[in-house]
């Protein structure tokens, strides 16, 4: 399995699990479907980008940094599009997005094989 496929699967699964935690907030029950889909797609996009990065740079540290950064950016975009009780839930989406992105970045460094020559990071 190549890194991009591995990243997309990891991102999809982690994104879906992160989205599922919205169940603990009763006011979101009516939007669970949309939250799950949105969170899964966001996770998958982050995973694909992390997988692409992992093919270029083989470094657990940089993988985590890249994943966390991408997770933060995409979570910001999602939060900016979303409104709960008249405000954007930046904190509620971006903080977990940051952590899930870091995990995705880590996993893409560990799972899957590089399709092209890998350049070790120093």
């Amino acid at each position, binding site marked *: 399995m190549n890194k991009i496929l591995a990243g997309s699967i990891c991102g999809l699964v982690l994104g879906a699990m992160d989205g599922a935690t919205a169940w603990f907030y009763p006011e979101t029950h009516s939007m669970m479907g949309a939250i799950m889909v949105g969170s899964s797609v966001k996770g998958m996009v982050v995973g694909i980008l992390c997988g692409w990065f992992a093919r270029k740079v083989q470094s657990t540290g940089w993988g985590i940094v890249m994943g966390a950064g991408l997770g933060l950016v995409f979570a910001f975009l999602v939060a900016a599009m979303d409104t709960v009780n008249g405000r954007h839930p930046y904190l509620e989406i971006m903080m977990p997005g940051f952590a899930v992105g870091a*995990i995705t970045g*880590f996993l893409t460094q560990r799972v899957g094989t590089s399709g092209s020559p890998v350049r070790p990071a120093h």
Partner: protein
Amino acid sequence: MDLSDSVLDHLRHMAALPDVSGTRYELEREIGRGGMGVVYAARDRDLDRRVALKVMEAELAGEARLIARLEHPSIVPIHETGRLPDGRVFYAMKLVVGVRLDHYLARSPSLAERLRVIRRAGEALAYAHTTGVIHRDLKPQNVMVGEFGEVYVMDWGVEAVAGTPGFRAPETPLDRRSDIYALGALLEFVLPADGPPALRAVAAKARRPDPADRYPDVGALLADIERFQEGLAVEAWAEPWRHRLVRFAARNAVLLWLLAAYAGVKLVLFFLRNL
């Protein structure tokens, strides 16, 4: 004529050295002595370099031919063999600048460094076994660690060698599995007092009295050491669940920290919301 003490000492020293006239070597001093012969530091006049010269009885000439067949980075290369005027045979080999393994351990090297030495020695054994050669007398005194960290297995045995107590397998005649026994004993020897139980189990499996219960070959033993170094379970040890958990946590520390961070974030958000 009176001779000074220093001249007398020099004469005694020279008289103790074998006659190497007719060869290209000048002996300097004795550097080792074993059941198979005596090793001297010498100078090769033709190539102007220092070598080690092993001198032994004529009937042991096979040892030189045996070792000359072995070409491996951890086996000292033989330059030349020959016969001395007194009928004994010799072979010239690379002079290894370094220390014996038992002396090397006095420097308290790290566990990783100790295992590196064992793995290099094991690779030399594994190679020799593929050529049909067995060592018969592997022990700390026969493993040298060079000044640049290179590892050499010395004194490859011949039929006459009976092994060394503590490192010699109980069975006779000695065979490949006897070298595995000795390598296990060597592993046990290099482990520090608080050495990991997984490695002690590897050493114990290699040293089982019945050769059939040991590792089938040196490669299997080395693979178990490698598994330990990679944080995986070793074949030789039925690991208790507590050790398994600790090993899993150590092997996946980064992932566990990331998951803990995620769980922490979620908990903080959950409680902030309910304030």
